[in-house]
């Protein structure tokens, strides 16, 4: 910037002061926003790292240990979280993807599409505790079934469905109509066009949305608290009424005294959960990037 002419010289004192004030405000706000996050992250890593660095953390459950006795690990909770996540995805992904295909490829602009769209909007706004209580009412109060890992998965399905459906919809919208027309012009029926041309073209985007949707529900706690009892032992059957998961492992140890081994397990579980979700996010990025490279 030139300062050679009079009118281009530095601003008067008043303006300079305002500039300074705004600048300070912006920096302080940014700091306020970031500080708690950094603080949480640093304390979780500092407190949790010792726990997850022991080999037994990844290979043993907590059978036979207590909050007072050291040893054992988080295997039961890691497997539980992964299993409930898997069951959730297996139910939610096909429904969400097919719902999105219905909305974009078959019913675009119709009254039906608007109705489904509206319902999905509402669904995406419900709090996780409401989803949990809904499933509780349906399966346990009305049908008389017991609490189970599957019941927790079903509540998570309600939470995952709208996010995956919306992200899939966006990806399908990005597929240019010219590709659909090219397929029709080859004499392909509509369903083959969708399955063989539209979905492969949008695949990496859809997969990214699925992984991010999964990462989002992995840390949900309310459905797990309400619909499945926490267990310190490793249980594999999805119909079992007791299953350990990382969020409920954290919850179960929240009152343990600082000096006991059970205390560091809580931090370890928190760190493990963060690593799991971060891993899924990185995976999603990788998938998105791989898809983009192929387009070139």
């Amino acid at each position: 910037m030139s300062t050679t002419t009079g009118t281009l010289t530095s601003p008067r004192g008043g303006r300079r002061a305002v500039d300074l004030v705004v600048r300070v405000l912006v920096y302080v706000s940014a700091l306020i926003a970031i500080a708690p996050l950094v603080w949480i992250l640093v304390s979780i890593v500092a407190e949790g790292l010792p726990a997850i660095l022991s080999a037994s953390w990844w290979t043993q459950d907590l059978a036979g240990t207590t909050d007072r006795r050291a040893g054992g690990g988080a295997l039961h909770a890691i497997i539980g979280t992964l299993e409930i996540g898997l069951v959730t995805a297996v139910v939610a992904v096909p429904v969400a993807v097919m719902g999105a295909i219905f909305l974009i490829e078959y019913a675009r602009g119709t009254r039906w599409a608007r109705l489904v769209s509206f319902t999905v909007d509402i669904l995406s706004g419900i709090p996780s505790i409401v989803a949990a209580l809904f499933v509780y009412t349906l399966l346990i109060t009305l049908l008389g079934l017991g609490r189970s890992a599957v019941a927790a998965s079903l509540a998570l399905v309600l939470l995952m469905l709208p996010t995956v459906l919306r992200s899939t919809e966006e990806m399908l919208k990005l597929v240019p109509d010219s590709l659909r027309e090219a397929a029709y012009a080859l004499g392909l029926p509509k369903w083959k066009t969708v399955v063989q041309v539209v979905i492969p073209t949008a695949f990496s985007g859809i997969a990214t949305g699925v992984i991010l949707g999964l990462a989002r529900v992995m840390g949900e706690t309310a459905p797990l608290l309400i619909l499945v009892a926490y267990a310190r032992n490793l249980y594999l059957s999805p119909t079992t009424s007791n299953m350990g998961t990382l969020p409920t492992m954290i919850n179960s140890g929240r009152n343990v005294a600082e000096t006991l081994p059970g205390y560091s397990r809580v931090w370890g579980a928190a760190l493990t959960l963060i690593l799991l979700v971060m891993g899924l996010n990185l995976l999603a990025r990788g998938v998105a990037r791989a898809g983009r490279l192929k387009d070139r």
Partner: protein
Amino acid sequence: MAKRIEVEDLDVYYGSFQAVAGVSLVVEPRTVTAFIGPSGCGKSTVLRTLNRMHEVIPGAYAKGRVSLDGVDLYGPGVDPVAVRRLVGMVFQRPNPFPSMSIYDNVAAGLKLNGTRNKQELDETVERSLRGANLWNEVKDRLNRAGTSLSGGQQQRLCIARAIAVRPDVILMDEPCSALDPISTLAIEDLIGELKEQYTVVIVTHNMQQASRVSDRTAFFNLEAQGLPGRLIEINDTETIFSNPSLKATEDYITGRFG
């Protein structure tokens, strides 16, 4: 293979808007017919009714008769999907499938319709790419993405993809308008070869192109915005360009030449 197209008294509507009125014309087998005319006069619309592609646009419908060797394409029980296997199409912008390799793009029509025989697919891919004058440029990289080619090569890939399913008729909607002059020339040469086997209909805004590649030329016009477009004159290309019978045709052609 090549078939004769007859259009009788065709009206095309987009919802309540009539885009084209009263078009009747005949396209002989193994000829190239060019559609010319100002923007918005309905060239693409008429072209797309020849393989019922207009039906993918919600609300679009046609009245009148379009027949292929005497078979009414709009007759009861006729499947538009089957029509499009007989009447292929090449679009204005090259649109290879981005999720597929060059090979798979060409094989797409056959593969997706159930052909699994590897040898048959290989032969078809080679024949079609040779037919589209692209074989020598891509034979060493058939597994690369179709979108990795240049625009002109992509357009020839799309032509190869269209002829791979052995249609009777090939429709082209401004196939060169997104291409450089050299790729354009390559496609024009190709059109000359295609007409030995296929019936070709091409929409173009380029008068020289129409006169270079086509045997017959159809001039469309529209009286005013909001009114339907009409077929004004159709004749041998030479006649249209040297001695058109209507003033409007002459004005359009000479206006374009400047």
